[in-house]
């Protein structure tokens, strides 16, 4: 486990062509880390996430991704992701291969990944067309009842990136609030990068809290507001207006590209990104 700047840890551990999961279920979405990946112009990534939202829309629109494994690709509470749509519908800026699941299927795949089983099982996908378009959705027979049970292959990302509330000085990570499949995605990965709101002397975690011990963490960067415009429970609220504005902003390729240039690429880091938004407001 090492501490570093976000720039250092993205540069040090994320390579072109890798499978990368920036997990987060509405809460604690690692926006700052996604922007740093975008700034460092990583290419040919296989992005993985149950709910690719705005940060994946940005990475896809900026040409960082060759593939996407997901189960719901929208702007939560708002509507479509226009850059994701443009990639799938029109191959812009480049073709995007999609591997599509349901939430239950992806949860089973991450769980299998964390447990290092080669597959997960669920009663799922019955009567749907998803298994027609995703050949990875298969089935086994129950050795006791002979029931057909759906299977999904384990997901084991090369790198998982999380945002969390806090790390202590040893590098133990505390996550609280809505946790989605973050723990499973973290433990399924070969490398785990974490941005945190703050590094503290003691996590003060309740006994059965969700803590990732330092020895499963690859690297940590302190990035205050690192989930903005998503939120960090106990630190700041979700900027719902940003999500609404994105719907408008992202419809047009030119406006999208200008926004990325102005706010992400021309910012040196997340603090400058936040400043540039404040100036524009």
């Amino acid at each position: 486990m090492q501490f570093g700047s976000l720039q250092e840890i993205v540069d040090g551990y994320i390579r072109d062509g890798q499978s990368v999961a920036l997990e987060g279920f509405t809460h604690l979405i690692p926006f700052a880390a996604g922007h740093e990946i975008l700034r460092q112009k990583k290419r040919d990534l296989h992005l993985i996430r149950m709910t690719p939202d705005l940060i994946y829309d940005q990475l896809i629109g900026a040409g960082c991704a060759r593939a996407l494994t997901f189960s719901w690709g929208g702007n939560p509470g708002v509507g479509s992701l226009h850059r994701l749509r443009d990639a799938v519908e029109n191959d812009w800026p480049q073709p995007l291969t999609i591997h599509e699941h349901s939430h239950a299927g992806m949860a089973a795949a991450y769980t299998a990944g964390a447990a290092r089983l080669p597959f997960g099982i669920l009663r799922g996908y019955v009567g749907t067309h998803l298994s027609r378009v995703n050949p990875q959705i298969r089935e086994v027979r129950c050795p006791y009842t002979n029931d057909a049970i759906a299977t999904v292959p384990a997901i084991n990302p090369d790198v998982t990136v999380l945002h969390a509330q806090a790390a202590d000085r040893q590098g133990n990570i505390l996550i609280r609030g809505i946790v989605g499949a973050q723990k499973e995605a973290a433990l399924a990965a070969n490398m785990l990068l974490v941005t945190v709101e703050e590094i503290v002397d003691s996590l003060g975690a309740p006994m059965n809290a969700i803590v990732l011990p330092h020895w499963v963490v690859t690297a940590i960067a302190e990035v205050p507001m690192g989930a903005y415009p998503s939120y960090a429970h106990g630190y700041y609220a979700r900027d719902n207006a940003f999500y609404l504005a994105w719907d408008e902003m992202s419809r047009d390729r030119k406006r999208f590209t200008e926004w990325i240039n102005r706010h992400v690429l021309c910012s040196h880091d997340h603090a400058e990104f936040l400043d540039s938004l404040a100036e524009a407001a």
Partner: protein
Amino acid sequence: MSVDSALANTYTPAEMMTIAAARLLWPGCVCFVGIGVPSAAANLARLTHAPDMVLIYESGGIGTHPSVLPLSIGDGELAETATAVVSLPEIFSYWLQAGRIDVGFLGAAQIDRFGNLNTTVIGGYGKPKTRLPGAGGAPEIALHAKQIFVVLKQSPRSFVAKLDFCTSAGFLSGHGERARRALPGAGPQAVITDLGVLKPAIGSQELTLVARYENVSVDRIRAATGWPLAVANTVDVMAVPTAEELRVLRDLHKRTEIAHARDASRSRKTPALSASQVNA
């Protein structure tokens, strides 16, 4: 005319749809809720006739009591007011798949006459005309919830003879196929639209118009349906919203707007502040 009845005469089709959905819920029922109309309907029911309903959001909140509607499925309000907050894999395995959900709410871009739903693509899958967000929790909610209520606006574009893609199973090809294939839940038992309510016919499971809203004709509903709509022998006219229903629903929406506006202004001010000072 009293103030209350004046209020009741001004409702919108969207309000009527929400209220019609809320009326189908009962005290103590365990409801798997999505964002939008389902969330509004479930919370309206909880704040009126079913105060002990259990709301479960797929983001992990079990027994949530939000005072405002979430804008996203993972709003902090849902965690703060929940009996328990669990992981998403747990929600889908120990709670949904385990058959603990009485009612699952689903929306869709397309529905067919047997209640099968499409939220994936319009057009072909490989090169779609419109790529929609996709499945999310819907396939397994449709499979495992003891029953499903579908909420969507009725039009020939959404009520289609043939789905472009089947994301979630309703009654499949009807005529008992769902039961024959032993899907655990009973499937869509009501489709609540902005015009009326459809229920599956006994035997065929074909969606059949059983209720219309005030001032909406059966012909108008037929015209908004992309297949020859089955109509029950008697079509009820659903009671208009009560003054209390409208008041509670509008209060809920108003509180929601105020809260989200406040969060947004607070959130955008915070970059300059120390993070731990805010909202801790």
